[in-house]
């Protein structure tokens, strides 16, 4: 797919590349090319978030999780060659697949943040899952489209986290200078 893109890659190409027979590919992916392509997108997606998870795993505070996660995810996204190629050449094939995945991602990011939010505590009247859902969808939005923010600059990411992400979920008195 990195070579030919998503639409032009055939089951034969994948079989040849893997040194397997066409029949073997069909045994694992009875749905053929479409199923194989969907599996690749899902797999790449999970790998991406797996690496993100490893990157932020050792963080000791919610603030650090958010900062490290945003910096790392944006860098990974820009360096992901297959994704970048498809965004340029086949957005109409890729985007519907990514949109399906993004529902799942909001759930994944949100689930990851819940323990941090529990530990930190959220303001009265706010549910932990509500705070987690807000953070997850905003994070995904910044990673995909930074808009006015430069996510390669750690200082700017720190400001973004402190101004747009944390105040609502931890209560404003909780954000102290480090």
């Amino acid at each position, binding site marked *: 797919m990195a070579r030919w893109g998503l639409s032009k890659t055939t089951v034969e190409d994948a079989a040849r590349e893997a040194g397997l027979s066409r029949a073997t590919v069909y045994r694992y992916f009875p749905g053929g090319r479409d199923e194989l392509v969907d599996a690749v997108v899902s797999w790449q997606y999970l790998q991406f978030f797996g690496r993100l998870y490893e990157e932020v795993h050792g963080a000791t505070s919610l603030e650090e999780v958010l900062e490290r996660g945003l910096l790392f995810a944006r860098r990974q996204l820009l360096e992901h060659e297959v994704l970048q190629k498809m965004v340029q050449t086949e957005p*109409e094939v890729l*985007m519907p697949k990514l*949109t399906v995945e993004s529902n799942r991602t909001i759930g994944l990011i949100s689930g990851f943040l819940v323990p941090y939010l529990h530990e930190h505590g959220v303001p009265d009247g706010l549910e932990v899952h509500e705070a987690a*859902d807000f953070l997850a969808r905003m994070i995904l939005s910044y990673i*995909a*489209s930074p808009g*006015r923010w430069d996510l390669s600059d750690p200082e700017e990411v720190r400001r973004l986290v402190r101004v*747009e992400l944390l*105040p609502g979920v931890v209560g404003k008195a909780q954000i102290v200078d480090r």
Partner: protein
Amino acid sequence: MGSARLKLVRDETHDPAAAFASVPHGDPSPQRVRLADAAVQCITRQGIAKTTLDDVARAARCSRATVYRVFPGGKDGLISAVVDTEVARFFSALALRMGAASDLEDVLVTGITEAARRITEHRALSFVLDNEPEVILPHLTFSHMDTILAVSSTFTAPFLGRFLDHDEAQRVAEWAARIVVSHLSCPADGVDLTDDARVRRLVRTFMLPGDSPDTRDTGPIRGRAPVTTHSGGVERMAPSPPSTRTRKGEAS
């Protein structure tokens, strides 16, 4: 994976001003708008792919030759005209509602709910999203979404500028645009962006607490009294901005 360095998506367009300038501001002649409206009717019934210039001519009760005269480029030009017309209407409607709001919270709540209503109730857009998602979705992610964020925040910032500094207004406007796109493309349980009370809670909980003394140096949201005069170009679209209306108790 190939080893060649590929062009980064981010390099395409990132300057918000350039992004805004890149939005087509097509000729809004009555005939163009009439044909765009006819095209919207066709798209609502059969989507973009199946809509032909003949269908549009029939719906507009004009000849095929007329359609080609107005849109020499054919269908692509017609679809651009549809987008221009609908986007202009969308922002005009937002301007009307946001211009009438009386404080920062109201501007945000009104802007978000009105945007969500207009988008979810747009029948042609719904048809395309349900049946031809590949036409719309590429415009809602990555650098294309950056353009949408730039356009929406440039447009809505003047309304927030009655209560916030310029930079803050831009930032908060972009925040609101992210909320709208995120919730409409991936709805959360129990969050209906057309519900005033629900959106008010969202704005109050997550947006307004940015006013923290501890983040002062990093640019919190500080509400201030509305300014009494403003000459922003976009804001003139709102027929009765609150600052020029009679205050309560000053009835003539």
